[in-house]
C-alpha cells in the first residue's frame, strides 16, 4: 500500500563519501574492499559520525562480500544488512532499504555502498562473462557480448517506431560533455560536436562509440539516518522523499531476455517503477528539479525521460533535441556528466550528484533545486528509483 504523501520523509542522507574515480583497472593495487572501506570512512566523516555508529548496511546485487566488509571495517553491531536483488537496476532501491531500516527501527545508521573494480572482467562485456547455459545460448550465437550491444536492438526499435534520430542520442552525449567540462572528477571533459559524433565509428549500430559510457573503477557510500536525527548533523539533510522498487514480467530480465512486451521493448523498463514512485511520493515529473538518470548508453536516457513522464512515449527524441535536458532547460539531466562523461560506478555517482545539488554545492548547480530524481539502470528487474528532497 502506498504511504500517505503527507506523512513526510522519515529518513535522510547525511553523509556522502567517494574514492577518486579511476579508468578501468587503474585503481590497482588497491583492492575492491579497500576502495569500499575508503568510501565508507569518507561518508561517515562527512556525516560527522563514526564507525561505531553503523548498525545497517544496504547494497544492490553487484558482488560484494558483506561478511568481509563487516570484518574489515570492524563493525560489531550490524542489525540490518540487506541487498536489492537486481544489478544496476537495483541501485536506487538501496535507499528504499535504508529508509525501511530507519523507519522501522531495524537500524539507526545505515551505510549504502556501491563500487566497481574492473580488473580481468569488464562490465561492458557482462553478457559474455556468464557461463554457458540453456538460456543464454542464443545471445552467444548472436554475438551479443555486452549490455550495449543488446540495448542497441531496443534503440533501433525506438528509432523505427517513433522516428527517433541519431541527433537525439548525440544531444544526450553533447549535453553530458557540456556538463562534465567544469567537473574535475570527470574523465571526458572535452566537448563533442554533432559532426564529431556523426563521424565516429559505430560500435553497435545505431550506437556509436560516444553512446557507450565509461568503464571506470571506484567506490561510493552514503550514510542514511532518521530525518529527526539528520537535523542535528553537520550537513543540510537530503531527505528520501520516497523510493520504489518494481518487478514485472513485462520487462523481465531485459536485455538478457529480449522478450519484453512490445511496449516495454521501446522503453527503459521504468514505466511501472515510475508510476509507483510518483504514487508513493505524491509527486510527478513536474515536481522534479534535476534528474540523475542512469546513463550507461545514451538512447536509454531518451527512453527514461519517457518512462518518468517528462515527455510522452516516443517524444523523447524531439524533447532532448529541443535542449530540454541542458542546465537551464526544462529538466536538467546529469549535471555531473553522468556515466557518459564523468565516471561509471554503477549509478552511485548519480546519488552523489543529487546530494550535492540538494545541499546546494554542486559544480553545475541547478538554481534553487529542491528535488532530485535518481534512477537505477535499465537492466534486469526489479527496477528501482528514488526522489530526494531538501524540503520537508
Amino acid at each position, binding site marked *: 500500500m502506498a504511504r500517505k504523501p503527507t506523512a513526510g520523509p522519515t529518513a535522510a542522507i547525511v553523509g556522502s563519501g567517494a574514492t577518486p574515480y579511476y579508468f578501468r583497472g587503474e585503481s590497482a593495487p588497491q583492492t575492491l574492499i579497500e576502495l569500499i572501506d575508503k568510501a565508507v570512512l569518507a561518508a561517515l566523516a562527512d556525516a560527522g559520525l563514526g564507525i561505531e555508529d553503523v548498525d545497517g548496511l544496504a547494497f544492490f546485487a553487484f558482488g560484494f562480500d558483506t561478511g568481509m566488509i563487516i570484518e574489515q571495517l570492524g563493525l560489531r553491531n550490524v542489525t540490518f544488512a540487506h541487498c536489492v536483488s537486481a544489478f544496476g537496476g537495483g541501485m536506487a532501491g538501496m535507499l528504499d532499504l535504508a529508509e525501511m531500516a530507519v523507519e522501522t527501527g531495524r537500524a539507526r545508521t545505515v551505510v549504502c555502498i556501491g563500487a566497481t573494480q574492473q580488473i580481468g572482467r569488464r562490465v561492458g562485456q557482462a553478457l559474455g562473462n556468464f557461463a554457458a547455459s540453456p538460456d543464454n545460448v542464443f545471445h552467444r550465437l*548472436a*554475438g551479443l557480448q555486452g549490455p550495449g550491444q543488446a540495448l542497441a*536492438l*531496443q534503440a533501433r526499435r525506438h528509432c523505427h517506431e517513433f522516428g527517433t534520430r541519431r541527433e537525439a542520442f548525440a544531444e544526450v552525449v553533447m549535453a553530458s560533455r557540456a556538463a562534465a567540462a567544469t567537473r574535475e572528477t570527470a574523465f571526458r571533459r572535452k566537448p563533442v560536436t554533432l559532426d564529431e559524433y556523426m563521424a565516429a565509428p*559505430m560500435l*553497435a549500430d545505431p550506437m556509436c562509440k560516444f553512446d557507450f559510457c565509461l568503464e571506470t573503477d571506484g567506490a561510493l557510500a552514503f550514510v542514511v539516518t532518521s530525518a529527526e536525527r539528520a537535523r542535528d548533523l553537520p550537513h543540510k539533510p537530503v531527505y528520501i522523499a520516497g523510493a520504489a522498487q518494481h518487478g514485472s514480467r513485462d520487462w523481465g530480465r531485459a536485455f538478457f531476455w529480449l522478450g519484453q512486451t512490445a511496449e516495454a*521493448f521501446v522503453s527503459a523498463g521504468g514505466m511501472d517503477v515510475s508510476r509507483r514512485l510518483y504514487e508513493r511520493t505524491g509527486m510527478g515529473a513536474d515536481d522534479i528539479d534535476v534528474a540523475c538518470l542512469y546513463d550507461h548508453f545514451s538512447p536509454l536516457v531518451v527512453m527514461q525521460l519517457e518512462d518518468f513522464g517528462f515527455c510522452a512515449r516516443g517524444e523523447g527524441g524531439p524533447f532532448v533535441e529541443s535542449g530540454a535536458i541542458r542546465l537551464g532547460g526544462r529538466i536538467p539531466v546529469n549535471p555531473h556528466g553522468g556515466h557518459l562523461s564523468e565516471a561509471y560506478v554503477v549509478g552511485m555517482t548519480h546519488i552523489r550528484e543529487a546530494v550535492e545539488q540538494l545541499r546546494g554545492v554542486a559544480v553545475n548547480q541547478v538554481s534553487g533545486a529542491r528535488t532530485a530524481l535518481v534512477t537505477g539502470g535499465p537492466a534486469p528487474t526489479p527496477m528501482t528509483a528514488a526522489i530526494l528532497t531538501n524540503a520537508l
Partner: protein
Amino acid sequence: MTRSITPDFSTFEVPMDTWSEPFWQAGARGETHMPRCLACGTFRWPAGPFCPECHTQPVEWVAAGQARLYSFTILPVRGAEPDAPPAWRIPALVEFDAAPGVRLVSVLVDADPAHVAIGDRVEVVWQPAASASVPLFRREDAE
C-alpha cells in the same frame, strides 16, 4: 559494404535442459518449433517449466512459421590481421507469425548490412555445431 559474416560454430557446445531439449531435437531435423502451453495456448520463451499465464506445465511443440526481423544491430568484427578488410556481424531478433510472443535472437548471416531492415522476412538455417545444430538467420528477399 561487405556481407555479414557466418561465424564458425564448429566447436560451439549447446547446453540443454529437459525443457529446451525438444527445440534442439526439432532443429536436428532442420525444423524450428516453439513450446505452446497445452492448457491456454500461450507460447513461452525461453522454454521453461511453467506457463507464465496459467502455470500449467506441459507444452506441445509446434512449427513457428514465418520469421521476420524485429530488430538488429551491426557489430564491427576485428580481423586477425591488422589490415584485414572491415567485417560485420549482425545479431538479429526475430518474431514468428505462428508463435506470437516469442522472440528468438541469433545471427543474421550473409546479408548486406546497408540493406537490412526491420520487418524483413528471414528463414532459419540450421547449421551443425559441436553438439547440436544451431539456428542462424538468412534474409529471404533477394538483394
